[in-house]
């Protein structure tokens, strides 16, 4: 392959990358390239064989591979879309020249008019959260264990403890139970669960798996293979309380302690990053701090539903296509979108407002679980949006639209806040 020129080059062929490719195609891009590291497109969905995907996006309940297939079917026979698998991107420079490598094509360099970053995220490890104890075999991130069980056909162990009540941890609690393993306990350092409510019910309660909130692990035992762990209750600063320790017998510890957007390429590019989302700072089109480089999905901020990932990727695909074709509207103002009050993060972090006005979709996460809250979007003193939500919790992303007619012309910085209403 020579140094070919593409309208849009998409880094990562998971749901974000595939959805972005389809959207770029729908919006008129003529030459689209998707670079995927794994042996097939589909990303992490390939190992998520449970159901519950696609209710929003495809209006039907799908498994992970089913959802991936839907995304793939939309792009696979398009002449304008090329997908290279088993291909790892090594470098992207700010002229949008991409260097990648694969066994089939060797080292390749491809030039994009625009680029969309859709690399997804990775799991936080044992080391990152400093769990004390030995370093035996049998400590896995939940996702690594999931791949082995669901795609490769092996068990990570038989007697399991799971640290962290994030969705992957909950799903794996059920998965291991279905495989005939004994899930001894799920431990969560926060006083609340970090998973979707439906996963708490369907994966823990339905299988009588004990959940210990406000607990963590103070030691991993076993020199060669895990033989057990010591758990302890934590205080309000998340420090273990002496005297509350108890041992749990297990041969495996699965970690579901958070996801980190995979932004090594973004950092290599020198994109402006957001300290709380750990992803690039983007505008409403998902364009980053370098013009023509877009980002979408878990690389921008970790989502809990793939449906929202697709939705966000479609935005990026559309505007990358328009940009490549020189059809982007000139912006008249750059307006900051600030997260305030109990809103921890809000994407996009800024809006580039044009003359025509457009609907602005905001994705946000709150700091703590709350009931009966009012969500407000203000531009200066003007209220653009105000609505009441029955519940808000950190584990469930909130998405709202600021309608075009409301968004238009409000060039004072926006503030997005959530406050608890009196019952």
């Amino acid at each position: 392959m020579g140094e070919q020129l593409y309208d849009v080059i998409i880094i990562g062929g998971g749901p974000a990358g595939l959805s972005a490719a389809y959207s770029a195609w729908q919006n008129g891009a003529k030459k689209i390239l998707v670079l995927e590291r794994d042996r097939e497109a589909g990303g992490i969905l390939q190992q998520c064989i449970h159901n519950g995907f696609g209710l929003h996006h495809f209006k039907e309940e799908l498994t992970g591979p089913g959802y991936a297939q839907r995304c793939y079917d939309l792009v696979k026979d398009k002449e304008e879309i090329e997908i290279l698998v088993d291909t790892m991107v090594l470098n992207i420079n700010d002229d949008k020249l991409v260097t990648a490598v694969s066994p089939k094509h060797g080292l390749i360099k491809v030039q994009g008019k625009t680029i969309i970053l859709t690399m997804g995220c990775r799991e936080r490890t044992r080391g990152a959260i400093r769990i004390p104890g030995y370093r035996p075999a049998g400590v896995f991130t939940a996702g690594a264990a999931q791949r082995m069980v669901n795609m490769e056909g092996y068990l990570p162990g038989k007697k399991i403890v799971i640290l962290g009540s994030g969705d992957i941890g909950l799903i794996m609690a059920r998965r291991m139970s279905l495989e005939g393993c004994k899930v001894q306990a799920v431990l969560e350092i926060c006083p609340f669960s970090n998973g979707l409510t439906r996963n708490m019910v369907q994966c823990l309660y339905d299988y009588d798996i004990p959940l210990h909130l406000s607990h963590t692990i103070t030691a991993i035992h076993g020199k060669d293979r895990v033989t057990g762990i010591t758990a302890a209750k934590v205080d309000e600063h998340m420090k273990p309380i002496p005297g509350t320790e108890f041992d749990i017998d297990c041969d495996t510890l699965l970690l579901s302690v958070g996801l980190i957007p995979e932004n090594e390429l973004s950092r290599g590019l020198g994109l402006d990053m957001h300290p709380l989302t750990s992803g690039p700072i983007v505008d409403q089109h998902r364009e980053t701090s370098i013009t023509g480089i877009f980002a979408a999905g878990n690389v921008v901020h970790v989502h809990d539903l793939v449906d929202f990932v697709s939705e966000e990727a479609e935005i990026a695909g559309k505007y990358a296509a328009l940009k490549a074709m020189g059809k982007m509207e000139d912006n008249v103002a750059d307006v900051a979108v600030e997260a305030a009050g109990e809103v921890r993060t809000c994407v996009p972090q800024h809006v580039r407002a044009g003359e025509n006005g457009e609907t602005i979709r905001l994705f946000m996460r709150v700091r703590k679980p709350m009931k009966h809250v009012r969500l407000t979007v203000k531009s200066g003193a003007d209220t653009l949006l105000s609505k009441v939500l029955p519940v808000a919790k950190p584990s469930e992303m909130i998405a709202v639209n600021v309608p075009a007619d409301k968004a238009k012309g409000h060039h004072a910085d926006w503030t997005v806040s959530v406050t608890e209403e009196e019952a």
Partner: protein
Amino acid sequence: MTKQADVVVIGGGITGTAILHELAKYNLRAILVEREPELAAGTTKANSAILHAGFDAPEGSMKARMNVEGNKMYHDLKDELNLEIRWSGSLVAAVDDEQMAVLKDLLKRGKDNDVPGLEIWDGNTVRESEPNVSKDVKGALWAPTAGICWPFGLALAFAENAVINGAEILRECTVTGITVKNHSVTAVETNQGTIETKYVINAAGIHADEISRLAGDDSFYIHPRKGEYILFDKTAQKDLVYCPVFPTPTKMGKGILVCATTHGNVFVGPNAQDMSDDEKENTAVTIPGMDETLEKARRLVPNIPVGATITEFAGVRAVSSTGDFVLGPSAITRGLIQAAGIQSPGLTSAPAIAKYLVDGIASEMSAARKADYKKGRPAQPCFRMLTNADQKALIARDARYGRVICRCETITEGEILDAIHRPVGARTVDGVKRRTRAGMGRCQGGFCGPRVTQILARELNIPITEVRKEMSKSYMFYDKETQSGGKA
């Protein structure tokens, strides 16, 4: 099965492998036995990875002599064996007048030990060199001959060269007894059979006293002293240091330092905890240990980027009851040669220890040098370090160099295959990690671990359920049907 040898080396850490490398230069039948599936699986894998200049140990001690000599030898060995060493220099920082006085003592001791180039710097000079060092640091001892290294890489390089030159390495070979007749060693008994030999070199690390006792010599004992480390991502280097920065030493050792690795990571540690004798295998990291390590490291570099932590680990140092290395022939059992009590500066001293001991044996046995001794070892391809043109050429030769398995460190399948099939190849997931860095990055093997496991199973022709993390019983996966794991 009975084997014959001239010399049996017990222990496949840095000391044992350096000794085997030296023995392989002679017409001697040398066999190294290692209890674990991988070499460098004990103290060698969990230490500060520093090639010390040699000013710490008192003049006249074995530690001082071997340290300075070993440091010099590594300057030559680096090219000969293609070792990963960076001659970074090192700093010992002082925060008050009392400590500044200690630096002067160290400077004098260093000069007595023939350490070249030592200088005392003032605080500003220190911060010009290492801008993140605390404002409280008043001065430091600069040792230009110190370096940082890739410790398992050194041990493996010694082993590979030895094997190329006819030495034998038996892994998962546990010593069960040493036969002594008329106060002379005649054989080593192992789980893989008897090895008849006149010489046994005891390089068994924290277990060296037990091995010595098997041969009837109880003249010393080894006391375990644990040290805990915290390792940071490469992104943290700009906030930390480029060379080792030590505090002023105390009786317990050189103290908790802040240091870079040869690959651009940074770490802090080790603390020093004296363990009871039944805790030689205790490599568990602890909350108080990590807290202590961070707190003390902050005195040298105040802003430690804790969020960039990628892993923690602990090693156990082999502290001898004699206060010095225990080197040379046993006074009790003929043919038993001690290389024991090898704590810091053991890594630095290893080639000097090897030469010292092997010179003795070779002259006693009147062994001749091998006429056809081959220097060096096979080149180890490193995809990420190559130019694009060389990367293309490598992939053209073998397409598997085009498949990236470890995305954090950009390690290709070709490199993993090389690690498995080169001399003394990797047998475990951590063995692959220590030869290639696959799994050493920020995701700590989350993505590549399962794939490395599959490659190992395929290449070693074993079921996935028999692939191990590192230690002999560290099986990773179970069969779904039978729910069984490990080796039947």
